[in-house]
């Protein structure tokens, strides 16, 4: 058999996914993966199915009211909020990623890591902090009045943070790392040779950025922006606090104030359909384009050295998002936490809460990252069509407001509980009390369903860079698809996979609505403690928990710091 024929056969095998031309003894594997994929799909679909059933119990009476009095304004507000946040996160995220990837300057390493820090900040805490700081009788404006010799707050009117523009800026400066992280990972993995070729051909830096780097990074930018926008759309804490009436606020008003869960589910499902449509349009926009690199070991681009004033300017520019998105609110939290500790001592139980947070967020992250890699690889592992369907499906959990997703999960989870209890009753004549919701299993499942999209997105963006030739080589050498995936793809996409896991972890640590609804008796996490204090207005009591959330969030950032260095070393030393 000639090599050409073998290659063609291997291609066919990868294309169809089901047949394995290499080793008969491994035939069973694809079936197991297919079964796993189907089970995962069922799990992701279960809350949406449950919500659909709920929605169908409604009469539809909610719609005339919405059309007449709510949708015109709420749709406009939502669109402006999403558009505004979209612009801010793309400009900050891509700009920052390019700054630390393309230029070398004093303090670059610090900026590179620091730019991730806002990830650790729950958006509603940032909103609380900035309102305290920027309120007419807060420290910033009081100081300014003293400086200008103005006595009454009325006489110096500054823009109000409790407004749509205020909300756009706050959310943008907290959410841009969703774009920064995958885009930077992509710049890291990306063939530096392309960029260098362009530089050698005399292209200006801006042309290199606009014509080469930006188009190459499009999958990462699209992924990050869609994550940030879904966060924005589903945000309830910050938006409500700042008086921005989005469609999501209406979902809650319908559910909570009118006891109309079916109506709320209807609105949420329509919004979900819109989100999926937008995601599909984006995917369609880059259909048929390959983003794979070459089989040779990737080289990061050589960084352009900036010295003197230019270096300082770069440093200053890189500091802006860190200061606004992290340092200012963090300093506020430190200040409040010190005030609390000096008045009342270290809050009781907060260490145990940190333990709970690590436990559940850790389990959720492991599950979501592993499943994320599996889903991203499903097109080559199971079947192309089914795998791509699964990837689309993974977005469902992230595209719904958190509390609505949690409500959707309640039914399936308690059903599963009931089934388990039925089995144990039959076997042993006794049933354990509620396990899933009661013992925290529900929480881990909720994290998986909610944040799978984050893990999948990162892995998919990474896998898209792995050239098909390597997979074919692996298969020709007699590796099973899964072995090829683990031995060839995983090492190559490690930065992307890990950055995805980092995002999932921080998301799990901050996650609020599902954690509130689904956790067992007597279990508090840092996020639930913080929220309980924040809505009572005892911010100071919550500040210690908030700081711990930030600290716990810093662990993965530190991990990423270690992850970044070997990749750089490898790139410099070459193969």
């Amino acid at each position: 058999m000639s090599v050409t024929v073998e290659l063609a056969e291997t291609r066919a095998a990868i294309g169809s996914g089901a047949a394995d031309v290499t080793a008969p003894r491994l035939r069973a594997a694809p079936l197991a993966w297919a079964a796993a994929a189907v089970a995962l799909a069922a799990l992701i679909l279960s809350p949406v199915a449950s919500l659909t059933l709920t929605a169908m119990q409604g009469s539809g009476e909610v719609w005339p009211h919405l059309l007449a009095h709510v949708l015109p304004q709420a749709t406009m507000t939502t669109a402006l909020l999403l558009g505004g946040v979209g612009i801010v996160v793309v400009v900050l995220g891509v700009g920052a990623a390019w700054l630390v990837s393309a230029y070398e300057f004093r303090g670059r390493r610090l900026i590179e890591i620091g730019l991730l820090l806002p990830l650790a900040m729950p958006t509603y805490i940032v909103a609380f902090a900035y309102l305290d700081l920027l309120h007419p009788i807060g420290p910033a404006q009081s100081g300014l009045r003293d400086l200008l010799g103005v006595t009454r707050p009325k006489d110096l009117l500054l823009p109000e943070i409790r407004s749509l523009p205020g909300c756009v800026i706050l959310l943008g400066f907290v959410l841009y790392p969703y774009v920064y992280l995958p885009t930077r990972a992509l710049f890291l993995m990306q063939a530096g040779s392309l960029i260098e070729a362009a530089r050698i051909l005399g292209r200006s830096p801006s042309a290199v950025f606009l014509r080469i780097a930006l188009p190459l990074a499009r999958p990462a930018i699209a992924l990050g922006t869609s994550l940030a926008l879904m966060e924005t759309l589903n945000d309830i804490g910050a938006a409500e606090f700042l008086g921005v009436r989005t469609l999501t606020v209406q979902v809650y008003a319908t559910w909570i104030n009118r006891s109309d869960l079916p109506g709320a589910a209807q609105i949420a499902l329509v919004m979900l359909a819109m989100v999926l449509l937008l995601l599909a349009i984006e995917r369609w926009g880059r259909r048929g384009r390959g983003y794979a690199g070459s089989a040779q070991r990737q080289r990061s681009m050589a960084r352009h050295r900036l010295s003197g004033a230019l270096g300082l300017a770069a440093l200053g520019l890189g500091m802006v998002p860190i200061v606004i998105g992290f340092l200012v609110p963090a300093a506020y939290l430190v200040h409040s936490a010190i005030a609390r500790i000096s008045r009342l001592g270290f809050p009781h139980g907060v260490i145990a809460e940190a333990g709970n947070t690590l436990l559940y967020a850790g389990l959720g992250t492991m599950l979501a990252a592993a499943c994320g890699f599996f889903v991203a690889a499903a097109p080559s592992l199971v079947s192309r069509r089914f795998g791509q369907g699964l990837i689309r499906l993974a977005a469902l959990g992230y595209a719904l407001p958190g509390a609505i997703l949690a409500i959707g999960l309640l039914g399936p989870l308690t059903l599963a509980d009931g089934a388990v209890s039925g089995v144990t009753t039959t076997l042993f004549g006794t049933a354990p009390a509620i396990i899933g919701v009661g013992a925290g299993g529900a929480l881990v499942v909720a994290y998986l369903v909610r944040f799978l999209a984050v893990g999948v997105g990162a892995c998919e963006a990474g896998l898209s860079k792995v050239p098909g030739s390597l997979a074919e080589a692996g298969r020709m050498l007699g590796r099973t698809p899964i072995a090829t995936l683990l031995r060839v793809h995983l090492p190559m996409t490690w930065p992307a996979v890990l950055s995805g896991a980092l995002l999932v972890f921080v998301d799990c640590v901050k996650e609020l609505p599902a954690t509130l609804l689904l956790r067992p008796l007597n279990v508090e996490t840092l996020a639930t403690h913080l929220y309980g204090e924040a809505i009572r207005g005892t911010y100071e009591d919550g500040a210690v928990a908030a700081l711990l959330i930030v600290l716990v969030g810093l662990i993965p950032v530190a991990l990423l710091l270690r992850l970044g260095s070997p990749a750089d070393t490898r790139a410099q030393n070459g193969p």
Partner: protein
Amino acid sequence: MVGWVSQCLLGGAVAFAWITGASAAEVNLYTTREPGLIKPLLDAYTAKSGVTVNTVFVEKGLAERVAAEGERSKADVLMTVDIGNLIELVDRGLAQPVRTEALVAAVPAPLRDSGGLWYALSMRARVAYADKDLTDTALTYEDLANPKWKGKLCLRAGQHPYNTALIAHFIVKHGPEKAKDWLTGVKANLARKPAGGDRDVARDILAGTCTVGLGNSYYVGLMRSGKGGPDQQKWGDGIKVVLPTFAGGGTHVNVSGAVVAKSAPNRDEAVKLLEYLVSDEGQGLYAKGNFEYPVKPGAPVDPLLTALGPLTIDTVPLADIARNRKAASLLVDTVGFDN
């Protein structure tokens, strides 16, 4: 092999029974009230009775969670704020009737269900926060729509249950048409978009953004006592607090309350916990910890609240307010109150 597996499963089941098994001395509380608020109450109860209180703070979806858990739910007591939320638990069939002498004696008839399905545990009034320079302090809720307040009024969102309940109360008092005119008038008087919480009203008055606004009575205690820190103390001390009334009526009051869960595994303990919460001691802790008005006549009131003057509660039954909650919420949208 099979024996080994079933042994493991059996061991697991025994462990579960051990973990989840109901000992006589515990009670499970599902609550929408913040842990920091009720923990002192529950700790005091445990110290006194030796009963362990297991709690979970569920903010949104309390009813949905208990309904989904069904018969196997561990919930004994469901505790929430706002009469609408309380009655929703009853309407969804999640409560069971409870009637003991202690409960009936402690909670006056208007503050409990006649069938014993729900009991109010504490009260809060919707009071006016006002600029200290304001001299005219006789204020009615109706008056808030008076154009003399144009550009001088601060409120949190109309879709917040505290305001929705007040609007529902207005609907009961004056009918939907007048309520619409009133709410439109209130909206026209706003100095800023409805946002933030009740304390922000005090803060904005201090900043000169507005002159008058509405907030719950316990926030006054929380701010002025310094429990929320020195900044909030400054806000609380910087405003004047007035108890408004409906014209010719009394002040709008909302409640926190509880029901005994339909499938409560520890029903007797649940009842005992409720009885403790409405006892003089329990009511005193509500007053001390969160500056709420007691439901039990004669129970102590915090001095920061008595300083606000005598509270005359309006006579509209709480259940009527709850019934008009949906209409009130729709009205908020209709007049674009939160836009």
